[in-house]
């Protein structure tokens, strides 16, 4: 190897120039032309980028860049980092309903009431509207929803002799025993805080509350009757080995279990169909959807699981906020924007779509090759899910630090599922204790 001065200079120059060139291309696109406003959207939902083309066509002076900054918790961490650094936060961020209160209380989000969103109440389902309505303001627009439903593998149910879909939790328990006898589990749970929230919500629980000024938090897990009701029931299921407590949700093994029938049903949000289609392809034609079992015969109470909204990050740049709101309105409120996303698999949060015959009459999902797949055996599954959306109990509140709370749930209560060394109510009590401690360390008064 021979090195001459010229070669050195050349190598040095190339090393220093390469990133410059690379940077140049990114900065030029962000502020090209004085009349255009460009906005950045953080969203992991794959259907959001599909709306950009239609929006930019209708609003040629606004450029939208949608970027996937991480899925749920990863994005929140990034958002918190950018906010504490004071730079790098997007104009719009996808935020799940459960995480919304903490951003509102920290005053990170733009109140959309004055921009025109206050009149949208009748447009959205009661559950989603109550989730974005915090302390009298509207801080985000719902983009999808997750009313709970019972997704079940009819073939496994039939084989076990469960010919009637369980409509109450007592029937669910009896069905679980029959299904366990065939070797399968009726469902799985290894200690998922989101699931815990949804299930206690459906049992009528309201363990959390935050005062209007955001200074006082109520944490009432150990005294709430709804929490007690559900905990006792689930403990019975765990004790009698009726649910799979070994297979974590969303793992490859879990998908395998759904695929081969060893996990026979799911209690989850209405957005599940497309996840089933790609995660458990062999279940095609075997699965069905039904309403959640209820605590009293003939009851209709329901709750939500998951679901997200788009929120505008607070900014002093009025032009950006206005442009961001235009995009938000297009994605979450305009018929064309919503249709684009629903066609791609999103479960809608607005009443118009939930009532439209196009949506309700669907009997097949569209797979990744564009082919129709009668995954639910020709059932008009959206009719069931749309009904589920109208039955959601409003008024359930999340903690103002729900992201943290869910993160430690498994540390406190996980042992009740995995090695059964503690009971579920002991786990919940430990969670209550740690949440109280954390709330106090964050400066809240805990009631």
């Amino acid at each position, binding site marked *: *190897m*021979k*090195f*001459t*001065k010229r070669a*050195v200079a050349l*190598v040095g120059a190339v*090393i220093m120039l*390469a*990133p410059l060139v*690379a*940077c140049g291309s*990114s900065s030029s696109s962000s502020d090209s032309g004085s009349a255009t406003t460009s906005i950045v959207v*953080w969203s*992991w*939902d*794959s*259907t959001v980028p599909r709306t950009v083309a239609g929006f930019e066509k209708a609003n040629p002076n606004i450029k939208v860049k949608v*970027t996937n*900054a*991480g*899925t*749920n918790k*990863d994005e929140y*961490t*990034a958002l918190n*980092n*950018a906010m*504490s*650094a*004071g*730079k*790098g936060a*997007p104009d719009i961020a996808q935020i799940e309903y459960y995480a919304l209160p903490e951003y509102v209380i920290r005053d990170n989000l733009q109140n959309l009431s004055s921009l025109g969103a206050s009149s949208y109440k009748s447009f959205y389902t009661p559950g989603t509207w109550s989730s974005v309505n915090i302390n009298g303001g509207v801080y985000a627009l719902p983009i*999808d929803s*997750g009313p709970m439903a019972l997704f079940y593998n009819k073939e496994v149910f039939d084989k076990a002799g469960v010919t009637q879909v369980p409509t109450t939790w007592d029937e669910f328990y009896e069905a679980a025993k029959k299904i366990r006898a065939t070797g399968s589990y009726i469902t799985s749970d290894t200690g998922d805080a989101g699931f815990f929230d949804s299930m206690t919500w459906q049992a009528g629980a309201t363990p959390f509350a935050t005062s209007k000024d955001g200074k006082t938090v109520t944490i009432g897990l150990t005294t709430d009757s709804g929490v007690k009701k559900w905990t006792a029931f689930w403990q019975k299921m765990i004790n009698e080995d009726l649910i799979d407590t070994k297979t974590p949700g*969303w793992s*490859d093994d879990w*998908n*395998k279990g759904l*695929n*081969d029938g060893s996990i026979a049903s799911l209690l989850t*949000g209405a*957005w599940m*169909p*497309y*996840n089933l289609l*790609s*995660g*458990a*392809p*062999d279940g095609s034609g075997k699965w069905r959807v039904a309403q959640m079992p209820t605590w009293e015969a003939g009851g209709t109470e329901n709750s939500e699981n*998951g*679901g*997200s909204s788009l929120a505008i990050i607070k900014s002093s740049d009025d032009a950006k906020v206005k442009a961001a709101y235009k995009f938000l309105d297009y994605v979450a409120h305009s018929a064309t924007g919503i249709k684009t996303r629903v066609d*791609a*698999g*999103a*479960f809608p949060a607005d009443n118009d779509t939930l009532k439209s015959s196009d949506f309700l009459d669907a009997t097949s999902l569209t797979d*990744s090759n564009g082919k129709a797949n009668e995954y639910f055996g020709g059932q008009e599954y959206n009719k069931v899910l749309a009904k589920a959306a109208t039955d959601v109990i409003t008024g359930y509140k999340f903690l103002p630090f729900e992201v943290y709370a869910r993160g430690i749930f498994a540390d406190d209560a996980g042992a009740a599922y995995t090695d059964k060394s503690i009971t579920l109510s002991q786990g919940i009590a430990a969670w209550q204790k740690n949440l109280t401690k954390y709330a106090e360390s964050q400066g809240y008064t805990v009631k």
Partner: protein
Amino acid sequence: MSEMNREATTSMPMTNGRAATNTTARRSTTNRRARARQTAHDERLERRRAGKSGFSNPANPRRSMMLTLICGLFVAYCLFPFVYLLVNATKTQADFTSTFGLGFGHGFALWDNLQTVFTYQDGIFGRWLVNTLLYVVVGAGGATLLAIMGGYALAKFRFPGRNAVFVVVIGAISVPGIALAVPQFLLFAKLGLTNTPWAMIIPSLISPFGLYLMWIFSDQAVPTELLEAARVDGAGEFRTFWQVSLPLLAPGIVTTSLFTIVATWNNYFLPLIMLKDSSWYPLTIGLNQWKDQASTAGGQAIQNLVITGSLVTIIPLVIAFLLLQRYWQSGLAAGAVKE
């Protein structure tokens, strides 16, 4: 020594005339076979002698069933993830969820998977690959260059504060890069550099371990007399460095660059907090994003693409190791024996 020994013992049967009775046509092969048999026999005897005397010939070590078995286990353990990747990269998503993890699926979809990996989401995987290459070439390349120059200067020049630098470098090695990532993020955010490739490149330019390695290596590999001779001949310090010292440092350079390349190629935490624009992601973050897609509402599970993408991601590293292995070995062994 051992080669000569073996030659001497194996040549004995030929001299006693047994081989001479064969016809010339068959002679060479028979000879070879006989010689191989004889060699094996002698080696066996040598090993037996070594077992008694306690001295063994390094070129003809004693065999141990136990050690072979343990080594075999380790090989299997190390290759296991790789085999898993290779096997599962040939499956479709449907086969991935329905068939045994270490067995092949119903079809062979490797080519389809590869094609989809590079076309999915408008071919963003290719962009991530290019990004990773950029970070490696500029970041790891720059880190290596800085380590060479710094290490060489510390080893070959005497200047005040040299010991202080030594203490700082040793201290810096003991601080894990992850611990510095968050302060770095806040610093870069203030400078307005997050979300640009600089946020990935500048921290990658620093490699205390590489500097230390090059320091030690320069100390051993470049004789001070040679530098004095070059100076006497009128070469400037730069010319001495590039033309005299650098060729001598080649094995060390390869070692250092392998370390920095692997560190940059696999870097996960730094880009995770620095970059939020998917068009600047390196492969590590991009693949994680694909993996997470399956657990989002209505998201399509693309585990087959994640697996195939991971395979594509490690192949350049495997190639780099295989090609540079020769230099690397001589680099690590340098200075072990006084020549």
